[in-house]
């Protein structure tokens, strides 16, 4: 008989109690994994930003447009290498629940965003055709779209029926690159606006400004904003990271709460497992006295109790972690399509879940071990549980 067999038998002594404890850990780890994934993915858009990109928008809010004429002026600022105008188009593709970013952009967008990989051929084909659009690979996969397919959007911010032809499918360079965007020519939008709503033409919602030296971002931002000081449309220029952070800050409180909640769940399950271990150790007070009498050392008893605690925690944590992957996938399916540009379990989430599992197993055993070791043999034999 090996000591591990004894640990295993001890763990299964109260099958219902152990099963419920394992189930509790499993649920806690799944909840932890899911919450951490949402939190991580939420902030990953910030991580995906580039230091050499600035965003210039209306100083009041990015929902107010800027004149298209600003583009050349911004480009004239020393240190600025490229400027790309962008407008949030929105619209409805087939169903209101089909959510993904649809943007009208200048043609140099893929040069400003080199992490959106588009083949040379597709890039040329896109530039040639007025109503062409480029979609992310995830969108193509999600809606089974191919090169040459039609995409029809019902406009809301820009009313009307908008017909596009897919001329390119970009691939994300990195794991956290958004592959759920649809972009089309700013000229296409602008020309129709000139016909249907001239007052809204020749405007963009923001400019994406590529700079040569990221260390000069503050200086360049100030220079751009200074150019439009006291104009009818004053600007606010900031790094892409700051812009993205501001964009998601509205949800910041909820995300922070989710962050805290994920760790709170681990704290609660720690108490549950600790309670199980304390009860088990208390019930075995006489047995520990027997072990000591037979010559088992403090190290042996520590191993028995810690082993049992770790076994329960690891089984629960292992099952929880294994189930987290399909459940996260299911959660993604349950969300409106494209709500999250990408949704996957980050390695750090797995590391945190494993660490939490091991910590729960370890910390739960501390008090029972302390009690078992400090109880004198004769007191152990007198104990009536």
């Amino acid at each position, binding site marked *: *008989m090996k*000591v591990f067999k*004894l640990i295993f*038998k*001890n763990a*299964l*002594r109260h099958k219902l109690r152990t099963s419920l404890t394992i189930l509790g850990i499993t649920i806690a780890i799944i909840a932890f994994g899911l919450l951490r994934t949402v939190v991580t993915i939420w902030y990953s858009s910030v991580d995906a930003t580039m230091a050499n990109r600035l965003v210039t928008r209306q100083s009041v809010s990015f929902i107010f447009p800027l004149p298209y004429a600003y583009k050349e002026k911004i480009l004239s600022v020393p240190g600025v290498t490229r400027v790309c105008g962008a407008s949030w188009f929105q619209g409805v593709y087939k169903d209101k629940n089909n959510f993904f970013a649809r943007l009208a952009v200048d043609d140099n967008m893929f040069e400003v965003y080199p992490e959106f990989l588009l083949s040379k051929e597709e890039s040329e084909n896109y530039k040639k055709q007025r109503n062409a659009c480029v979609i992310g690979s995830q969108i193509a996969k999600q809606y089974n779209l191919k090169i040459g397919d039609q995409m029809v959007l019902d406009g809301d911010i820009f009313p009307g029926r908008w017909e596009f032809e897919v001329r390119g499918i970009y691939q994300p360079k990195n794991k956290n690159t958004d592959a759920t965007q649809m972009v089309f020519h700013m000229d296409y939008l602008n020309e129709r606006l000139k016909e249907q709503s001239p007052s809204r033409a020749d405007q963009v919602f923001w400019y994406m400004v590529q700079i040569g030296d990221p260390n000069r971002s503050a200086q360049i931002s100030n220079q751009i904003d200074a150019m439009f000081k006291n104009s009818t449309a004053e600007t606010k220029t900031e790094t892409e990271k700051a812009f993205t952070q501001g964009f998601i800050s509205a949800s910041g409180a909820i995300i922070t709460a989710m962050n805290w909640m994920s760790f709170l769940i681990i704290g609660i399950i720690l108490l549950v497992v600790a309670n199980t271990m304390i009860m088990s150790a208390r019930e075995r007070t*006489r*047995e520990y*006295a*027997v*072990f*000591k*009498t*037979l*010559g*088992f*050392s*403090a190290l042996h008893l520590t191993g028995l109790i810690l082993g049992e605690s770790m076994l329960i925690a690891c089984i629960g944590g292992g099952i929880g972690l294994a189930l987290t992957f399909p459940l996260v996938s299911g959660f993604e399916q349950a969300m409106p399509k494209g709500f999250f540009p990408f949704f996957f379990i980050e390695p750090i989430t797995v590391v945190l879940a494993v660490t939490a599992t091991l910590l729960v197993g370890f910390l739960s055993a501390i008090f029972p071990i302390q009690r078992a070791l400090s109880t*004198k*043999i*004769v007191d152990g*034999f007198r104990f009536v549980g």
Partner: protein
Amino acid sequence: MSAIIQVKNLSKSYWRNSLEIPVLHDITLDVEEGEFLALMGPSGSGKTTLLNLIAGIDRPTNGEVIVAGTNIAKLKESALAKWRASNVGFVFQFYNLIPVLTAYENVELPLLLTKLSKAERRKHVEATLNIVGLGDRMSHYPKQLSGGQEQRVAIARAIVTDPVILVADEPTGDLDRKAAEEILTLIDRLNKEFKKTIIVVTHDPHAAEKASRKLHLDKGDLV
């Protein structure tokens, strides 16, 4: 014969808050090698405490307990645990078997602390269970055994390491007359056939009849 156990001026007191409760007073006794000693006395006389001190599971307040040349009162906790593992076999009134382990595994427990191989352990465990007459009950769990059988497994566990002394605290106290007789016969056999030094605590005169010497304790004193 020489004294394998020497108890010299042994005293033991317990403390309840600041109140000292003396249990043993200045006990001195020798136990010869191969002797079968019965410690008798009414409840609270201190016989179990004396047994615990001789077996090294409790610490004296004053005095010395020398077993096979080792003053166990001076051993540190870890050294005392090792000493117990190789020198003392303990039989309890309520058997104290581990319920999740089979008879075989319960008897094997003390051998896990030795360097014996699995095959050697098996040989020892089987031989010992055959001595106590439970060779056919090895795979049974304690709850599948009668009280007498459980106590025989406990005795097998106590002697499987071939300890210097075997101590038993009311070994028949929880058994019916027939089972008690079987246990006493077995203990007597261990003494006579296997030359084990045995100390039994009992308040049953019939149980003490098997012993080669009887000592009476009353209110912490040998009388």
